[in-house]
């Protein structure tokens, strides 16, 4: 099969899978609703509890899961290629720790007023992630003409620990109820309950995906070595910058939307590679769709398994993702 055909088949198959999961997910939940009532336009929306559950509670939540899942999975692919390290995740370079610190501060200081209708916690966490990106980027460029991936990795890991210490300090200083809320934030929560947070997260994610679209071929060449990529006409430094900034932007937006939901950025890309091979032209779109499907499915479990109680979605992704990934490793040996 030609590569063009394989790309098409990958897009169609994984796109369909993601679409099906996203269509089915809003149909189930802790409450049973009647689809006929949901779409019954003769009942005013204010009186239609089923429609409100569907359109206000579930649909934004499913869309948030899809956005977060595809962003984190795609960022994982890009960062693994950039760092040539299969263990790299969207959270390796300190972006999520920066986002978490921002969110912790907003929760602990009880910042109430947001900007332009968006609430304080996501804004603070997005700002935190941008701050972390700026620091890591600045460090990686400081003594290097391009972007030193070694410095990037070390600076990211160090910044992660540093921010984690600050997070612990903020938690330690805060009140009990606040401590609980901050810990809960770290487990991930997609119950956005309106479309505004999606609107806020969509532009940076769209920007990142526009960058992701031009990356796959260059990433294939870069995964061999910088020199061979350069000899084939790839602007190595530019590609590295674009990879790092776009993956970080997507991660920051995703984390500010749903919290640092773990395991997606590493499990999904590797799972996809086991299915489609290592060509980034296939891995990147398949991971984006696969990540969306995986998070939406996990969130559906989180909403329904112990209803009316809810299992934090980050717990579900790790509990399902971890063993599943290990099983795949053994099976494919």
């Amino acid at each position: 099969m030609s590569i063009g055909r394989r790309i098409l088949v990958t897009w169609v198959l994984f796109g369909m899978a993601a679409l099906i999961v996203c269509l089915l997910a809003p149909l189930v939940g802790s409450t049973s609703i009647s689809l006929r009532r949901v779409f019954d336009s003769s009942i005013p929306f204010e009186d239609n509890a089923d429609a409100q559950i569907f359109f206000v509670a579930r649909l934004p939540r499913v869309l948030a899961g899809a956005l977060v899942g595809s962003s984190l999975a795609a960022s994982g692919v890009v960062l693994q290629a950039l760092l040539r390290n299969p263990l790299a995740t969207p959270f390796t370079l300190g972006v999520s720790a920066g986002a978490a610190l921002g969110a912790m501060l907003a929760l602990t200081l009880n910042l109430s007023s947001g900007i332009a209708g968006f609430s304080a916690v996501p804004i603070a966490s997005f700002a935190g992630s941008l701050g972390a990106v700026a620091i890591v980027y600045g460090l990686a460029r400081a003594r290097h003409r391009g972007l030193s991936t070694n410095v990037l990795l070390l600076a990211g890991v160090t910044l992660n620990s540093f921010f984690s210490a600050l997070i612990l300090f903020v938690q330690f200083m805060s009140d009990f109820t606040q401590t609980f809320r901050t810990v809960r934030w770290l487990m991930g929560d997609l119950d956005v309950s309106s479309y505004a947070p999606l609107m806020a997260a969509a532009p940076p994610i769209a920007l990142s995906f526009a960058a992701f679209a031009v990356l796959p071929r260059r990433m294939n060449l870069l995964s061999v070595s910088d020199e061979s990529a350069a000899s084939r006409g790839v602007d190595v430094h530019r590609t590295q910058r674009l990879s790092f900034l776009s993956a970080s932007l997507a991660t920051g937006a995703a984390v500010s939307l749903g919290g640092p939901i773990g395991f997606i950025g590493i499990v999904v890309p590797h799972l996809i590679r086991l299915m489609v091979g290592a060509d980034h032209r296939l891995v990147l779109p398949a991971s984006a769709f696969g990540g969306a499907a995986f998070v939406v499915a996990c969130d559906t479990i989180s909403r329904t398994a112990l209803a009316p109680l809810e299992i934090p979605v980050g717990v579900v992704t790790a509990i399902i993702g971890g063993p599943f990934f290990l099983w795949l490793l053994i099976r494919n040996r």
Partner: protein
Amino acid sequence: MATHKKSIIAVALLLCVACVALAQSSPQRIISLIPSTTEMLFAMGAGPRVIGVGNFDRYPPEALTRPKVGGLIDPDVERIIALKPDLVVVYGTQDDLRAQLERAKIPMFLYEHAGLQDITSTIRELGRRIGSAKESGALADRIEAEIADVRTRVAGRPRPRTLLVFGRDAETLRGIYASGAVGFLADMLDAAGGTNVFDDVKRQSIQTTSELAVARAPEVIIEIGVDTASATGRNLRAWDSLASIPAVRSKRIYQLRGDGMMNPGPRISTSVRRVAEVLHPEAFQKIESRK
């Protein structure tokens, strides 16, 4: 030999009695690490004997003048011992602190949050322990009478289905925490004449999603606690997106602020009354207008 044994037992018994008597003699240097027990001590007139309080103790204002000796997770044992207390009120889960105080032979009073009735029983027990049985008895009686008064006023009235929220991210419907069917918040709602929409959730708290809030269809929403960030109308308007909730449509959403609402201490009867007043305003107006 038998008499020898007997005398040993007698001495041991005597020692036990002495120890108990020593422990029971009214303590003069009390440290309380938990906001609610600190409040109880002050409310029963033992404030002058309180020489150290927890980091989170805010009430009464005199409590703020006492040295702070840490909180639930991070009690400052050195500081506690240095203050030479003769009684420390500790929380049941502070195992390390208990072990250390035991080694230092410092008497303790163990406490854990529970239901509404446990508040007054704790007050009585704590009062007996510090030799203020009379004062604490009077305090507990007064609290019980005030709660009973509220119960009488709301008796026989329809009990609105109520969502009792004690935490929510400001200006959004994210991170909503509500009272489950267990604990003093649930008891408080019950005493105030409300039906908990989560009376099937046998836990102290539940994280409430927007779906659950719609599905449970509360007729009244009460938001309490210090961290219900802003009391502004804008904050309450977050609920408007779920207009099918009866409480939203009838605009029966209330914020009851103040840390007393979240504190299972002697101010509980006031808290019960505040909840009852928003659930059953007519039950309180009538009697007041008669006065």
